[in-house]
């Protein structure tokens, strides 16, 4: 990445249409280098589609985007070489061991054996996977799998890490361990783009962007958003935005939901 660049990702009117349906509608993003950037929004709001265009696996219908200074349409392979990606499904080879998974991705990114072995050691330590080197990935529990997937995404020391709902289906302790790793990576200068439905996680991001119906509604630091909307936390803001756009009331507390259910049962 050219050093003069201040944004790791920049998009201009990025749009993706599937037949009649516009999944992503004129998205403009500016993600500063070295930041942890949270892309937030309800299911089906266009988060994954946006991410897939940035990873160059979906072609935008219109609009422009550069990732680490490279055009997403002109230089997809250049971007792929410098990008770490982790999908919500932890796409690991379950019939390969922890080490073999890391070895495989190391080879795919063209690392020599020495560098690969060194990186493997570092990542196993980073991901708290020590002692599990010879275990098949399929036998690992959710949190371990997730950290192995992160390790695989980091094997080639990418400058940019894109994480699509990395903590979905993972226990609260593993989530915290995972986010500690994310922030330590950020300190090393890696830019991180992450989507999540956990607003407590989102609050630890440097910048968050709310996306709804394929459009960006607001982008700012979590503190600024909370302050400007006069809300308690990001969760309230998420609900507020959904209510504002859909014009429907959302129960703000789970306790209330439970109460309603009990009443209807009687």
């Amino acid at each position: 990445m050219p050093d003069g660049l201040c944004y790791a990702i920049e998009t201009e009117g990025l749009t993706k249409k599937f037949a009649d349906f516009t999944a992503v509608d004129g998205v403009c993003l500016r993600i500063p280098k070295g930041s942890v950037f949270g892309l937030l929004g309800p299911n089906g709001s266009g988060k994954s589609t946006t991410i897939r265009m940035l990873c160059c696996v979906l072609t935008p219908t219109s609009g422009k985007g550069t990732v680490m200074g490279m055009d997403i349409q002109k230089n997809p392979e250049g971007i792929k070489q410098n990008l770490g990606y982790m999908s919500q499904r932890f796409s690991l080879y379950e019939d390969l061991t922890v080490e073999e998974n890391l070895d495989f991705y190391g080879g795919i990114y063209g690392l020599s054996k020495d560098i690969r072995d060194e990186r493997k050691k570092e990542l196993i330590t980073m991901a708290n996977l020590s002692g599990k080197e010879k275990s098949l990935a399929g036998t690992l529990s959710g949190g371990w799998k997730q950290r192995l997937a992160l390790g695989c995404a980091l094997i080639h020391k990418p400058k940019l890490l894109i994480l699509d709902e990395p903590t979905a289906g993972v226990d609260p302790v593993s989530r915290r361990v995972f986010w500690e790793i994310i922030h330590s990576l950020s300190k090393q200068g890696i830019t991180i783009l992450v989507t999540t439905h956990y607003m407590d996680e989102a609050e630890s991001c440097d910048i968050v962007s709310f996306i709804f119906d394929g459009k960006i509604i607001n982008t700012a630091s979590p503190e600024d958003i909370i302050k400007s909307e006069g809300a308690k936390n990001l969760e309230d803001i998420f609900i507020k935005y959904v209510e504002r756009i859909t014009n429907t009331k959302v129960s703000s507390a789970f306790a209330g939901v439970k109460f309603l259910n009990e009443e209807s049962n009687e």
Partner: protein
Amino acid sequence: MNNSLFDIKRFKSIIKKEFIQVRRDPVSLRLPLVMPIIFMLLFGYAVTTEVDNISTVVFDQSMTQDSRDYVEKFIVSDYFTVNYYVNSEGEMIDLIDSGKAKAGLVIPSDFSIKLKTGKSPKTQLIIDGTDPTTARTAMNSGIIISEQYSRTYKETSLKMLGVSAAALPSTEINVRVWYNPGLESRKFTIPALVGLILQNITVMLTAFALVREKERSTIEQLIVTPVRPVELILGKLVPYIIIGCVSFLFALSLCVFWFSVGIEGNLLLLLVLGFLFVFCSLSIGMLISTFARNQLQAMMSMVLVILPSILLSGFIFPREAMPAAINFLGYLIPLTYFLDIIRGIVLKGIGAGYLLNDIFALCIFTFVILSISVLRFKKSLD
């Protein structure tokens, strides 16, 4: 930063990963060894066009030494096995109707008398024509046996009159059957079976290769890496090429040692061309894998490949007998060419010079199918 079009490190990584996966999957290891045994033994005996021991009912109204001699000729031919002797036409019809007998030999009551008085008695052979192959064999062999009987009878009669049959002029045709002098159908079908089994196993092995990655969504991770389609597809093929070749050797040894169909021609040439065919069939499987979204679709596409190849390649039915359009379809099936090759080398013992067209066709098929696979596999989710 590695952006080359073909990177050996990436290629080797794919191969290594595939090897590990194959090793850990007992099915893909055992299938190529178990399937040739099962298929060869099962089909090796089933796919035969030779008909003998046709169950026969005899309605002998003459009951004389002559008529018994006549029936005896049918029995010693091995084509007919007389399982029933009946005393009425009704019983005979019943046996043929019920399928217990496929042929009925009727000898008239004046059989012996007519012979002795110098007249020609008329016997009758009734044949169940449901299965034309059996019927044709019964008909042809019935006619020949009967003619032989009457010739021998004539010769004996002439000798009694003091005339030697050799004194009468006659033509004689000297028939020589090459390559398969015993006209054993197993020599025709077993080598072809090796080809068919090989095709089925290899197509099956690779048809799931990419589909598995799609189903387990590992493909999503792969396409965001710099790996190139050609590295991925060729890399995935390598372990299966080895498995396919082992499978070929296995099927071929069964052909030689179990079914005693020896190889007349050059073994090395056969092996090289067998490996070429393995590569070609693996590409077909890989092509299926690029467009099938799940294993079910891959299975159905496999049927689309396998079924026509059994019927149109000349495996069972001679392609010469097919209408031009259907015959042409056979040319679109790689197995057609390999059957020419394996039958040519195993039975006829011919060299590569006679097989150039077939070899060329297989090479073209492999190249085109592989190219389509590589082009079809786009690194995108569009």
